[in-house]
């Protein structure tokens, strides 16, 4: 009986080795803050853009049993952390005043997107290659340039507006291990 119990324990412990291993790490290498200063009429009319301003580094690996790399891919989404761009004097700007685009050699870009509301993240990149170490993601920002939606700044009250945005690196749900 004792031998039988010991055998059961070994079987029990051996199943721990069959779970999936995923490691995802997102690092902001540069461009950890973005600031648009609209101080001329030209900027009001044409908006402002910062190309490849934020640089992220992606580490992502997903393995199945015994360390083999799976077919899982990764993606990066973005969403705002507030429902609008809040001004110090109480004015607000619509979130879609800010548009973004991400590019990465190891993933598929989704083009220019307008900043979404909290709880409704939008993909910037998907189908990211599994097993990447320090893959470079570059993000460009566009303010008041009406690239996807009409968001001209003319007519908006002067103020200092701010919003935090969050990038999320995660397994791409459209792919399976």
């Amino acid at each position, binding site marked *: 009986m004792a031998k039988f119990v010991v055998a059961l324990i070994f079987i029990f412990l051996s199943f*721990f080795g069959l779970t999936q291993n995923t490691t*995802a790490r997102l690092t902001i290498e540069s461009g950890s*803050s973005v600031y648009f200063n609209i101080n001329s009429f030209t900027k009001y009319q044409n908006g402002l853009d910062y190309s490849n301003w934020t640089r992220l580094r992606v580490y992502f690996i997903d393995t199945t049993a015994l360390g083999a790399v799976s077919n899982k891919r990764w993606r990066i989404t973005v969403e705002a952390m507030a429902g609008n761009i809040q001004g110090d004097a109480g004015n607000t700007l619509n979130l879609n005043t800010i548009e973004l685009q991400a590019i990465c050699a190891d993933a598929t870009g989704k083009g220019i997107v307008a900043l979404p509301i909290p709880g409704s993240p939008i993909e910037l990149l998907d189908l990211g290659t599994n097993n990447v170490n320090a893959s470079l993601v570059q993000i460009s920002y566009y303010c008041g340039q009406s690239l996807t939606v009409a968001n001209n*700044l003319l*007519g*908006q009250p002067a103020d200092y507006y701010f919003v935090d945005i969050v990038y999320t690196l995660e397994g791409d749900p459209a792919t399976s291990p």
Partner: protein
Amino acid sequence: MKKIITIFVAIALSTSMLKAQPISDMGVIPIGVTLNSILRLEIVSGGNIEFVVSTIAQYTAGIANLPVYDTNFTVSSSRNFDVDLYSENVDLVNVDGGANMPLDNIGYTITELGTGADGTQWDLAAGIQILDDTPAITIVDGIVGAGAGNSAQNDFVINWELATAAVIAANTTAETLLVQSLAGGRYITNVILVLTSKL
């Protein structure tokens, strides 16, 4: 049998630990936008208007508008706006210290010169206006959501005239310069244009 059941229970318990947990990471970026107010009025030409009355015909009929009696000004504004116009003085002041000339001998009309349109970007004061010292006379009334724009859009001309039939018909004095029997001399006032932003 007991052993077989025990084995199956052990397997069942161990498989419950095979569910993988999703792994993700996040980064937060603050974004700031400063909108500096742009509110600019520029008098392009006609910053000094001089009427010289030197004939009886001019005393009788006044001096009608000509390009030399035009004031061209532009507005660049990041927000909708109004332009008010008024005289600094109650009358046209006699520089020689004698009796003043009634201010309402001066009349004007306002028209657009740029890409903006009356009734679309703003409402311009219609018809002949009489110069007044009241600060609340609006000659350009910006339309919500349309007035903001550059100098190419907001380009205006004030067409001045002196004691013409149209001015006399609209003013209080209601007399020609001849009938007013004003002493010869120079009569002046400053006209003030006020640009204000609004919603």
